[in-house]
């Protein structure tokens, strides 16, 4: 079923329809392209959910693929021949009659189940069963699907484990391998990560080039390196005894590296306003990825919301793709974004699309139709089918924190004092690089140096 030519379109089935896609493009992007913005419904209140983050973070895009429920569609590439359907909603995900639960949300506030039927045990038991059905409990994978995700276990003996294959992770892996250490690099999907869709300029080896280009070069070098094993997968968790299982296709790799390099990048942060979960409200990197990597443009009119320098690059990317950007809302009082971009918010003031204000609400019955923006105390409703949320990102340092936490040994105390741990410097056995460490711009040379220190510190250079 896979096409012979890498760019020849392939077909898959989506709820009885045949959709065509470029091989490698994400399932979610192909569904969006076909004019279907609602991918699933929320669990309890049945609110429509759609493509939001693009990077397997938000959980708004699960679909059933070949009988396996709950597959993240924004990071699963189309290979051709898949049978895809949406999961929640009756009679369909588009028109869910149980959406009444959301419309009645006023009457069923969070935690309502603890107030109901407390003196009527039989009714309570019955209500619980009904709630279970209504909440739309999922399905089992089909036996074939279950067989397809079965894994075998393998021990990985690499000295250095690099988690994350963006610019920093690739550079660190090359640095470590350069010292003679054996390296395993884990990354879900195509190497390069978020940089693949970025226009910012990066300096590497005394040359400057767009991030996507640098990412591409580093990725090729990694793939060509004999001492770097590249695994398309993700880390399950950090466990006691330094065990770091990596889940890949058909495989669980049991890694116990001498040194761990955390290069897990950053998260886009959602905006806080009513309707922020509506299909059509999309986080910045998710927008870039759809435009640049999946090469899909499912929008016509966009509002970009920012708290710093990320707004204009996003607006430019959208306009280049033919989307009309009707407003760039710069949130009042926000500082400069630490992301690379053309500069702090005030430098955008010469742009007539810029509104100094605040997004108050995302409107639309099922999907985004308009954005309420408050400027100088007055609320304006701006028609748009995309609200791009480009706020300062947050370091994705979960794995690093988890290692600190597990290594410290967790007994039960209030607070615990680990959340404020300083992750910027290397600790014995672990280094954090790139945006995971809070670096505010891509710095492959620095990541390379950290990787080299990790490699030589792992005690494997002798004899090589």
């Amino acid at each position, binding site marked *: 079923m896979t096409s012979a030519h890498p760019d020849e379109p392939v077909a898959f089935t989506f709820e009885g329809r045949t959709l065509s896609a470029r091989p490698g493009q994400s399932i979610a992007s192909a569904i969006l392209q076909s004019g279907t913005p609602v991918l699933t419904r929320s*669990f309890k209140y049945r609110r429509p959910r759609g493509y939001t983050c693009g990077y397997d973070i938000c959980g708004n895009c699960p679909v059933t693929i070949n009988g*396996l429920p*709950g597959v993240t569609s924004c990071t699963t590439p189309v290979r051709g021949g898949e049978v895809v359907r949406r999961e929640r909603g009756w009679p369909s995900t588009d028109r869910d009659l149980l959406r009444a639960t959301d419309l009645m949300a006023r009457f069923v506030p969070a935690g309502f*189940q*603890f*107030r*109901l*039927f*407390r*003196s009527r*045990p039989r009714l*309570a*038991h019955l209500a*619980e*069963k009904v*709630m*279970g*059905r209504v*909440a*739309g*409990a*999922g*399905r*089992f*994978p089909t*036996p074939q*699907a*279950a*067989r*397809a*995700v*079965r894994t075998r276990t393998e021990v990985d003996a690499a000295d250095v484990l690099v988690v994350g294959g963006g610019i920093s992770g690739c550079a660190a892996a090359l640095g470590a391998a350069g010292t003679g250490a054996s390296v395993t690099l884990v990354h879900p999907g195509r190497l390069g990560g978020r940089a693949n869709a970025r226009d910012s300029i990066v300096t590497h080896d005394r040359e400057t080039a767009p991030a996507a280009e640098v990412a591409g070069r580093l990725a090729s070098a990694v793939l060509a390196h004999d001492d770097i094993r590249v695994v398309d997968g993700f880390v399950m*968790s950090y*466990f*006691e*005894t330094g*065990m770091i*299982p990596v889940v890949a296709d058909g495989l669980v790799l*049991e890694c116990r590296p001498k040194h761990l390099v955390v290069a897990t990048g950053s998260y886009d942060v959602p905006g806080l306003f009513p309707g922020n979960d509506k299909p059509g409200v999309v986080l910045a990197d998710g927008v870039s990825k759809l435009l640049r990597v999946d090469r899909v443009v499912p929008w016509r009119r966009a509002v970009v919301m920012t708290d710093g320098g990320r707004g204009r690059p996003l607006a430019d990317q959208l306009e280049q793709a033919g989307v009309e950007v009707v407003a760039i809302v710069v949130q009042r009082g926000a500082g400069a974004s630490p992301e690379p971009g053309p500069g702090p918010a005030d430098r955008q003031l010469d742009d007539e699309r810029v509104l100094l204000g605040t997004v108050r609400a995302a409107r639309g019955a099922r999907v985004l139709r308009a954005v309420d923006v408050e400027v100088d105390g007055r609320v304006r409703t701006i028609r748009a089918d995309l609200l791009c949320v480009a706020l300062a990102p947050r370091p994705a340092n979960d794995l690093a924190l988890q290692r600190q936490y*597990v290594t410290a*040994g*967790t*007994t*039960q*105390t*209030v607070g615990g004092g680990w959340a404020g741990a300083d992750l910027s410097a290397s600790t014995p056995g672990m280094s954090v690089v790139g945006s995971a460490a809070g670096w505010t711009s891509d710095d492959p040379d620095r990541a390379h140096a950290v990787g080299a220190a990790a490699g030589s510190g792992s005690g494997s250079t002798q004899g090589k």
Partner: protein
Amino acid sequence: MTLPGVATGRPKAGYDVVVVGAGVQGLATAYELARSGVTNVAVLDRSWPGGGASGRNGEMIRSAFSSREWAQLFDLSLRRFSELSAELDFNILFSPSGYLVLSTTDEELRRQDLVAAKQAEYGVQSEILDAAEVRRLVPHANPELARGGIFQRRAGFAHHDAVVWGYLRAAARAGVSVFSGVDVHAVLTSGGRVTGVRTDGGDIAADIVVNAAGAYSDDLNLTADVHLPLVKARLEMIVTEPVKPFLRCAVATPHLLGYCHQTARGEFVGGTELPGHDETDSLNTTYHMLRDMATKWVRLFPDLGGVRILRNWAGTVSQAPDLAPVLGEAPGVSGYHLSIAWVYGFMGAPAAGRLLAESITTGRVPAVMAPFEARRLIEGRSIAESTLVVTTDGRS
């Protein structure tokens, strides 16, 4: 953010009763004390209410045990569970969907008639199921393992946080002060009597101190010079993403050392153990237990193959050699009461709280509670219970 029912401010200089530990045991005891008129009570916890094993357990509830002592204590609890939502004015989501102790080995099959006959003798109603009946009850279970079982129809499970919150609020309404973030360093005694506790914020006087410190109860005992053969043990659980409703009752499999149920949302919740207990107070989860759970649960319910695990977590308990709880006044220290060594302490709490409160307020030990007093451990007696899903390390 504090939970409704948690006191603001610092504890007073003295109380009639100080309870150490705001788990389900400490809170149930405090609530029952207040109900019987003793309201000048403080519950002290260094963490948050339910932050110990009480918020980390399998939520399973039954009274169909093989020994008279266990059956009678836990039957009182089971009866309390069905009235608790109304009494606490809080729906604890008690689900009397039944509790199956699965027989998977020849040995278990041979014994199940005998066990059920004993249960009938103790007044605990249970049903003996053959292979066909078990498969009808749990159609998704692997037929090789579902060979028989003992089913208790009115048992089941409840929401563990709701039970903690329910007791917490009801105790607070009745006048009990529950403090979070107060670490008790020692039990203070003088001349064989308890006089109070030493905390990180100073001493608090009390003529009665209740040790309900869960995994840390032995550490507390040592400060009062009470020596019991207890060990800490870590237990782990998983919860999966929601799947269709396929399992109505709670299931325990002594042979696989596992216990599980499915929530109303469709999540499958299960824990397993390996022979020999994991003696630590760490709350880290481990890779080998994650594998053990995944392997055993897919073996018992093959349809779970390919279903994702959403979360896993660990909790810690303290255990006596016979795995039975220790309930009652500590030997040698009058006024110092114990509700400790709980391995099935979620299901046991409603009864234990009531019985311990009764013994404190009346000075008489209720008959159902008497066998569980600490003396048995010092005198080397043990309570023989054969249907537990816990390992003893071959020590009892």
